[in-house]
């Protein structure tokens, strides 16, 4: 779970890091990714693996394109004002969610996993597909890291993150970078969603939970810090399980939420972020 969480949170963190805006509709991109995965997978009858692969490619592309459109039509016009963006993305959240309900329906629908085997440990079993998910997530994370750290695109992104005005002065088309980042963030959520649908089901309200968790991860990891996000995702993914051994799961969620609030109040740069005052 931590792996998928890391992907989703990374998308959110990327958007926040570079654009300094919070995308509340992020969870809905995740949901859309899952719903589209179901749709793509059902285009191909008879071969679940092929259907899944098509979904893995197609779903993020569609979601990314949609995010691009949303960016052009709405966010750009708001000039990425942080507070206006939150309100606008809350609006998008409702729009996406209700459109999914209208066209996809209220049912939770499963997608067949491309592979299915079961790993039997001495005292319990574990689905082999989940291990595949972990591996796939790691590969995507690595890919994003390479993109950011080793390519020109990454350099441009980091430059924009560092100083918007200066980047503009150097001839970087900041608005294009923003649109790209927004789409990339959404695509990461969609990839995470496609990976998860064989485990969970595609459902129109499924965006809420990952959104909240991603928030937690991004905040604990330090707003906008990519490395912190990944570390925090793994940390929280693991600790979530550990906390809920000692406390009731609802209490565990309460403690986690309070912790996040307190982190923001007392250490706004995140637990793993560097202090920069």
């Amino acid at each position: 779970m931590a792996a998928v969480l890391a992907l989703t949170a990374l998308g959110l963190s990327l958007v926040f890091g570079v654009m300094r805006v919070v995308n509340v509709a992020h969870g809905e991109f995740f949901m859309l990714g899952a719903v589209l995965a179901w749709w793509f997978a059902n285009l191909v009858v008879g071969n679940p693996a092929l259907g899944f692969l098509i979904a893995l490619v197609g779903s993020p592309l569609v979601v990314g394109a949609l995010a691009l459109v949303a960016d052009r039509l709405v966010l750009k016009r708001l000039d990425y004002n942080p507070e206006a963006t939150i309100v606008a993305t809350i609006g998008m959240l409702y729009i996406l969610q209700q459109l999914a309900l209208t066209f996809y329906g209220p049912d939770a629908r499963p997608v067949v996993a491309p592979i299915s085997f079961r790993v039997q440990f001495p005292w319990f079993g574990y689905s082999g597909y989940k291990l595949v998910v972990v591996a796939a997530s790691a590969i995507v994370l690595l890919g994003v890291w390479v993109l950011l750290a080793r390519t020109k695109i990454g350099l441009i992104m980091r430059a924009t993150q560092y100083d918007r005005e200066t980047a503009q002065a150097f001839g970087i088309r900041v608005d294009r970078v923003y649109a790209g980042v927004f789409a990339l963030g959404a695509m990461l959520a969609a990839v995470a969603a496609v990976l998860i649908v064989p485990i969970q089901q595609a459902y129109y309200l499924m965006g809420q939970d990952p959104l909240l968790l991603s928030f937690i991860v991004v905040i604990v990891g330090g707003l906008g810090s990519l490395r912190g996000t990944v570390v925090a995702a793994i940390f929280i993914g693991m600790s979530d399980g550990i906390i809920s051994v000692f406390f009731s799961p609802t209490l565990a969620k309460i403690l986690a939420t309070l912790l996040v609030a307190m982190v923001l109040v007392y250490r706004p740069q995140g637990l793993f972020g560097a202090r920069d005052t």
Partner: protein
Amino acid sequence: MNGRLLDRALLLHLGVIAGLIVLQYWLPAYHHGIVARVLVLASFALGYNILFGYTGLLSLGHALFFGAGVYGAGMVMREFGWPASAALVSGILSAALVSLVVGFLALRTVGVAFMIVTLMFAQTGYLTSLLFNRYTRGDEGFVIPQAARAIGPFDLSDSTTRYFAALLLFAICLLIKLALVRSSTGRVLVSIRENEERSRMLGYNIFRYKLLALVISGAFAGAAGAMYALLFGYVGATFVSIQYSIFPLLWVLLGGAGTVLGPLVGTLLMFYLVDLTSGIAAASLLAVGVVLVILILWFPKGVLGAVRERALPWLP
């Protein structure tokens, strides 16, 4: 500002209240009930506007204060058999207390962090109401018996009494808010919205003023929540859910942030929009989403904000 202008604003607000009194004799039954609901919810929005519209603080956690009002009233009736009047006071005080604590912590942050912190606090409150389901009955909620919902000789489940109780709450909130906005304290709150650093350098303790705005706002929310529980007899976790943090924002944005009457206009419009579209499958929340996006793009000042800009500059 001369005296005549002030009177004009005051008259307008008294006129609105008078109009609402007249309306109660004239409205058909269904709309009568709706307006009573809207008045209670508009009181919630009035409070939200003090914080958001006047002080410039965008909270995403007001469901917590509304819920504190709902439970603050409902729990004491259910667990200790308090009368409705005491329950109302208990609801308001609970919300004020909760907002004081939340404000004390959350106001250390600004901007986006403030939004997220308030959101997280509200989420904590929501989960807490689920955790203690033995007392709160969690998501299922509980009913306040009809017999208990009376203050003195006034049976709050009677539709006329309910309307007037809702209107009374609204009128009190409206006039308090009008007085606040036009007071020197209101001027300081606006100055914080406009330029926080400058107001600090005029010698104002920004933190204290923000906390004041938040507590007043929370108390309004709590009064509305407690009243809602008393008038409609249901207490449940749904009132602490995130939707009830989004709604007041939406109402205020729609009606006009930073206008005294805007929340009423916004709540009324939004309520009817949802009510009309809910006949069409799945569309009601879609409308909410579309309205939010349209508002923020083209009418960031809301209905009354636009009116003030174009026609009535004296509107408070």
